[in-house]
């Protein structure tokens, strides 16, 4: 069975290699080949999953060592895999949702002449993402981490003829580099602290290291997670990343890659458990981001950007839960999986809407689409109910647990975190209802596009609707399946550990409160967008609305503080370089040149003066030797 693990990565990697190197002759079959290999990876994952279920909880993890990668002295990096319950959860999510989105893309990208390349990149992404979650050491994880970053860059900028897409790709890459730097520093710190970066030894001996070092490692890991998972303060790239094709937004920027930060923190649980300060930082980031993303989501008229804000906010929930320690890890991952279903479904629905509306993204130009796209409407609607936490649907179970756990943190901290999570739930209900109402309800508001083409909304082809239906089923039932008998908890507990917190409020109270804020959120949205017609041009709005439309001034902040500051710093350094460094270098060069010119004169071509110099040299040599003996 161990031998199969490598194939999880190898199958999509092969696809990427063949599709990207194969040239035009693969144009006709490339997309099906890519889909097939993604499905193959999923089937292998499923086989391994069945095998894993056959063993008891403690013995489920599989390890396999492929080869020694960098053996240099005491430094040892291996290409080795570890497939435990946590990794398995991710593998199934990544390859499962990934396969569905490959299938969807066959239809979505039908008219794109670079479709083969698109599937090559998607396969590359799958390979890197699977590698990230099955690596058995941080360095190999880093390879996957960079690999998904690369694939994300390539796919955001896939329509590189649009300057906005090219810029968005660069922005995502650069912001991610900041986080990547954190991960590389964390790995270096691990090596100096533990002498290794394999999961086993690092995590089992984490308790023995000093808290200061663990806090430093934890903060660096958090920085990495912030970059990849678009958490404050490295959140600015996610909204722009929506420039990529919609299947990319669904797969990479909603369901899988952006959750890598949650994986990293959960995987490194032992480090965070021993570093409370780092944990506090994690929950702070999570709580701030879940509100930040939700507020941004309320103000956006671009359907994908509204969903992007929502993604940021939902991942904030997961980060918050992961930061709570053993009381939260399981629920972080559970929400991650349910979110994978409903958010991917929502994005695919959005893509389906755009497909029928000449790629229009402005929700103010939608309206009343439920009549034209019934399948999209129903599947999107199930995703909507799931994300707002409608009782019985998957989001209800997972989000409710996170809010409970936040209160269970205890003390003032617990109240603050729990309050933030509740407030977030209210805002989620508001902005998702707003999206739903603006898109599918009300009067039709669409107008001819720039070329004068009137949109003719229509249902999308089967290749697109089938994945949407499957994901909608997941949104519908996953939460219940996971929660009945605590199935998911029991499944993951051997890896992440679990502790019950001491909540100051009962679980029932939390659930009721959640329901109450849900109703409030929906009601406000209904009163604003349901009862009266949606204006085709956005009103000026309050100060907060205007700020939220500008992503709460994130880019302005970055521009003023980082770009301007960086420019000042660079100018200063250039100045120093010109005067001090160049001065020293040029001065030295001049001095050496002058000395050289002087010494050259001794080489006058006369054998007699050469002989004198030899004689003098010999005299000095002898004198020096004798002198050495004398002193």
């Amino acid at each position, binding site marked *: 069975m161990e031998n199969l693990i490598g194939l999880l990565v190898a199958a999509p990697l092969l696809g990427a290699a063949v599709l990207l190197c194969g040239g035009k002759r693969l144009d006709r079959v490339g997309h099906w080949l890519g889909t097939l290999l993604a499905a193959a990876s999923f089937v292998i994952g499923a086989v391994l999953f069945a095998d894993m279920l056959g063993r008891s909880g403690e013995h489920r993890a599989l390890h396999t060592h492929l080869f020694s990668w960098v053996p240099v002295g005491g430094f040892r990096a291996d290409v080795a895999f570890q497939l435990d319950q946590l990794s398995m959860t991710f593998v199934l999510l990544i390859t499962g949702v990934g396969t569905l989105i490959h299938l969807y893309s066959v239809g979505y990208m039908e008219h794109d002449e670079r479709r083969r390349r698109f599937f090559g990149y998607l396969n590359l992404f799958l390979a890197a993402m699977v590698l990230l979650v099955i690596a058995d050491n941080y360095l190999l994880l880093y390879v996957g981490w960079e690999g998904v970053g690369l694939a994300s860059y390539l796919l955001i900028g896939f329509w590189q003829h649009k300057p906005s897409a090219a810029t968005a790709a660069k922005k995502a890459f650069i912001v991610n580099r900041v986080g990547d730097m954190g991960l590389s520093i964390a790995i270096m710190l691990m090596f100096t602290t533990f002498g290794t970066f394999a999961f086993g030894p690092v995590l089992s001996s984490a308790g023995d290291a000093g808290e200061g070092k663990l806090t430093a490692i934890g903060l660096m890991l958090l920085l990495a997670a912030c970059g990849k998972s678009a958490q404050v303060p490295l959140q600015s790239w996610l909204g722009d990343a929506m420039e990529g094709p919609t299947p990319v937004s669904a797969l990479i920027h909603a369901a899988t890659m952006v959750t890598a930060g949650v994986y990293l923190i959960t995987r490194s649980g032992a480090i965070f458990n021993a570093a409370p300060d780092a944990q506090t930082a994690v929950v702070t980031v999570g709580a701030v981001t879940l509100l930040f993303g939700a507020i941004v989501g309320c103000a956006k008229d671009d359907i994908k950007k509204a969903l992007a804000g929502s993604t940021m906010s939902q991942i904030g929930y997961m980060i918050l839960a992961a930061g709570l320690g053993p009381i939260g890890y399981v629920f972080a991952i559970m929400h991650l999986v349910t979110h994978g279903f409903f958010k991917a479904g929502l994005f695919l629905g959005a893509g389906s809407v755009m497909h029928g509306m000449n790629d229009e993204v402005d929700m103010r130009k939608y309206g009343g689409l439920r009549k034209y796209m019934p399948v999209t409407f129903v599947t999107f609607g199930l995703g909507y109910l799931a994300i707002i936490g409608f009782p019985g649907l998957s989001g209800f179970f997972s989000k409710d647990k996170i809010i409970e756990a936040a209160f269970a943190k205890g003390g003032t901290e617990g109240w603050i975190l729990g309050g933030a999570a509740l407030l977030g739930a209210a805002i989620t209900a508001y902005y998702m209802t707003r999206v739903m109402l603006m898109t599918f309800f009300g009067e039709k508001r669409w107008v001819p596009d720039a070329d004068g083409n009137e949109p003719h909304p229509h249902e999308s082809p089967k290749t697109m609707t089938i994945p949407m239906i499957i994901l909608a089923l997941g949104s519908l039932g996953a939460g219940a399946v996971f929660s009945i008998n605590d199935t998911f908890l029991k499944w993951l507990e051997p890896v992440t550990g679990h502790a019950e917190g001491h909540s100051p409020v009962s679980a029932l109270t939390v659930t009721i409160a959640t329901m109450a804020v849900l109703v409030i959120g929906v009601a406000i949205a209904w009163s604003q967008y349901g009862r009266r017609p949606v204006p085709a041009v956005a009103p000026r709005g309050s100060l907060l609305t205007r700020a939220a439309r500008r992503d709460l001034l994130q880019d302005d902040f970055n521009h003023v503080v980082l770009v301007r500051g960086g420019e000042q710093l660079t100018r200063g350094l250039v100045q120093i370089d010109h005067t001090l460094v160049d001065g020293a270098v040029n001065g030295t060069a001049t001095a050496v040149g002058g000395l050289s010119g002087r010494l050259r004169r001794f080489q006058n071509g006369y054998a007699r003066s050469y002989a004198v110099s030899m004689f003098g040299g010999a005299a*000095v040599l002898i004198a*020096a030797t004798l002198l050495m003996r004398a002193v």
Partner: protein
Amino acid sequence: MTDVATVHSLWTMAAGAEDKIPAPHIEYGQLSPTLIVLAAAVLGVLVEAFLPRRSRYYAQLMLTVVGLAAAFAAVIGLAAGGYGTEKAHIAAMGAIAVDGPALFLQGTILLVSLVAVFTFAERRLDPAAHGNRVDSFAAQAASVPGSESERAAVKAGFTTTEVFPIVLFAVAGMLVFPAANDLLTLFIALEVFSLPLYVLCALARRQRLLSQEAAVKYFLLGAFSSAFLLFGIALLYGYAGTVTYAGIADVVDGTVKTVDPALAGTMGNDALLLIGGAMVLMGLLFKVGAVPFHMWTPDVYQGAPTPVTGFMAAATKVAGFGALLRLLYVVLPGLRWDWRPVMWGVAIVTMLIGAIVAVTQTDVKRLLAYSSIAHAGFILAGVIAVTPDGVSSVLFYLAAYSFVTLGAFAVVTLVRDAGGEATALAKWAGLGRRSPLVAAVFAVFLLAFAGIPLTSGFAGKFAVFKAAAEGGAGALVVVGVLSSAIAAFFYIRVIVLMFFSEPTPEGPTVAVPSALTSTAIAAGVVVTIALGVAPQYFLDLAGQAGTFIR
């Protein structure tokens, strides 16, 4: 051990029975590399004497190549037979050591010579004089430059095929030099390889006066340094009562108590030891071109025919440093507190002066000469380490450096204008646009000289500096790195000149060489890259060969 005993018994027999003179015991098999080369040289002289002029070139070339290859095969055979390690011992009645360093250096010298002979034999480069194909050497060495007889010789298409036996004699001397185990053998080997070199230097076909001037200077200064060496030997004999390395070392260590009555006044006198040791060192430092005994180098490198310069710069340095290593590690280890500080000083000024003066050179051969001085300094840093790593790093460096040098000078022979080789650096401007391949190859050699990673120069420099640092010579390494930085400037400057300057209108052309020079240059590139990319195998080889027999 048994051999030493045999030697002892031979000596006691000689002392006991005056009427019997025992035949010296010579291990012909173990001396075969040198003997093969000498035999080929003698045969070469016979070829010169008895073969008609037109068939001499091919006969000589064949004989030389076969002789050198056979000698190299013999070295390999000896190394494979364990003479480099467990069977290492001192042959020929204590005169010649057969051990790891000796075999490694002999192998290097033979390979280098073999490649160098290819450049000696090149006859495609010089535009044919009167329809004859000629090489780099004077038509008739004895004719006065510019005279009627010279013109006649050129017209008749004469060539000096004597260079082949001459070079073989030089090689034989070089083979003995690093293996010499007593001071007299050392001196004789020195003269055996020096005299042919003086002659070779005088044989340039073009600019003959410059060539002859170089030869005379080299000869005069060489004789001067030999005098120092010989006097040093005399003083050491006075100190130890013997000229064998082991014998002197024993006296230095104080393990010999019996005093030769004839030397009662001087034996054990440290002043003799120190002065004699310094003088012998000086003789060797002259050969390797260390400051302040370096001044012959630029003039001779510039004046000598370029193939000879390449051979001399590569092989002499290997032989010279080999002898220096053996002297310092076998004879004078007990004195290291005396000679190390002095050698520190020599290494530092050699590195700095070589690098600094090279900056303002305008002739590519002189530039390479100063570069060779700087490199001598780098190698000295490894010599000073006095550790097994020091020995192996120096061995590696010598092998790496000699091939780079040969290749670089071989490239110099290709760049020509109406007056022969165009060695003025200004004429090399824009060479990369005219002949990208030749310029790229030269750039590879320059990068290796500068010690850029993935070339042999980096691996070698790293090895010697590492050994020096571990041997406690950290300050030396700092100076070495600074000198390397200065040196990098002028190497890179040539690359910039070749690739990023506008070609001059009447610039030189690049001659298309025959397979001979191409092979030599290719060998240089291959070794440079191989030792740069995968140095470990060769470092291990040098490491195995790093123990001197005493």
